């Protein structure tokens, strides 16, 4: 068959896909956030809740629950300027539809460092939408932003390259505080803003060797883990289990006596 025969079929297929996805959510594509608000876009607002963006998905979506997610790999204990960190956002595989926007800024809302994606070949199947990475990075230096639009992914891996240290007037090397902000939406896919679950997350951390910032806030049941080798997590889990078992045994002893 030639290309002309394929064209009507392709068009029909596209229309079919458009018709079944038509009831989907307002911000289906990353480009929707940069569209003028007058035509239904975000007008440059990405709803990350960062100091520059200020609002999260909760400003429209009525959250009926606070979902739990795993966030691993960001250097919340302190970052090394210029270093690249790989971090994972993971959620319950049974959730049918998840989207998020995350952003890294300094305290004044300026873009901080850069986000990038690992090569597609290095991603787990749950991090893909078709053959491509499910997450998208906003190009350009104005914002350090990553999004996930709803496509059935179960986790994403993002790389954050911290900014290089700069020299202040006294010749000392300094690096700004990093403000990690985001909002994750678990949609019930009914095309409305009701009945969804939204989790906002924010965490402030400084460069290594500096006093940790006070303004640290984690909302909505976000489970945050500091960057650590896998063995560390395993050891921590075993420790929690042992402590739990001891407490349970102690409780039983008290009951029996």
């Amino acid at each position, binding site marked *: 068959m030639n290309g002309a025969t394929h064209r009507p079929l392709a068009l029909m297929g596209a229309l079919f896909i458009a018709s079944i996805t038509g009831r989907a959510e307002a911000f289906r594509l990353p480009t929707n956030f940069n569209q*003028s608000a007058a035509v239904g876009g975000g007008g440059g607002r990405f709803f990350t809740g960062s100091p520059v963006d200020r609002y999260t998905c909760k400003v429209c979506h009525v959250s009926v629950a606070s979902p739990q997610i795993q966030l691993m790999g960001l250097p919340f204990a302190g970052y090394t300027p210029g270093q690249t960190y790989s971090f994972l956002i993971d959620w319950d595989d049974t959730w049918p539809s998840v989207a998020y926007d995350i952003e890294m800024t300094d305290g004044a809302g300026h873009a901080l460092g850069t986000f990038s994606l690992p090569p597609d070949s290095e991603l787990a199947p749950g991090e893909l939408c078709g053959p491509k990475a499910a997450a998208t990075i906003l190009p350009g230096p104005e914002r350090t932003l990553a999004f996930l639009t709803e496509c059935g992914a179960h986790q994403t891996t993002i790389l954050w390259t911290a900014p290089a240290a700069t020299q202040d007037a006294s010749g000392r090397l300094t690096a700004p505080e990093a403000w990690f902000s985001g909002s994750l939406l678990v949609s019930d896919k009914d095309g409305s803003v009701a009945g969804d679950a939204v989790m906002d997350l924010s965490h402030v951390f400084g460069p290594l060797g500096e006093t940790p910032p006070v303004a640290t806030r984690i909302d909505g049941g976000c489970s945050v883990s500091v960057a650590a080798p896998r063995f560390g997590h395993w050891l921590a889990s075993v420790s929690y289990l042992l402590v739990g078992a001891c407490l349970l045994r102690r409780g039983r002893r008290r009951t029996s006596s």
Partner: protein
Amino acid sequence: MWKSRKPARSCCVLSAALLLGVVSNIAMGCQSETAADQTPSADMDTFREEAYPVLMRDCGFNACHGVQERFLIIFGPNRARIDPATHHDTPVLPLEMEVTHARARSMLVTSGPVTSSLLLTKPLEKNAGGVGHGGVDDFNRNVYQSVDEPGYVALLKWAQIALAQPGAAPVSASP
């Protein structure tokens, strides 16, 4: 007694209403003709181009001015719709634009300069001349930190044009 008087009374009320309607239509017709002659829809054009995108971006959310409970309500795509059956992606409908415009215009009523109107003082940080506003962000900041912010400037530009129109002088709140 009452039963026999009721039709006559209804007739009087109906006649009065019709008369009032005719008179007000004539008055409105004359007024709109005059306004159209002098500044053809500059108010609405500026609103559509300058103020509406800003209101949609900064105010028209479900948790803010995208709900019927608020006097200032902003209708449009991916925000509140007048008819809930309208698809959320459908471009703003003429009626939605008119109602949003009318509500925003009502917020310009003031006894002083337009900068003291609710539309321009509510979203402005107090230390920049604003008044209290429930719509602060997670950082406890009002919508606009200063009068130099582009969003505020756009609203002010429209407000000045809206109030410069014939018959659009601000209604005095003071006796």
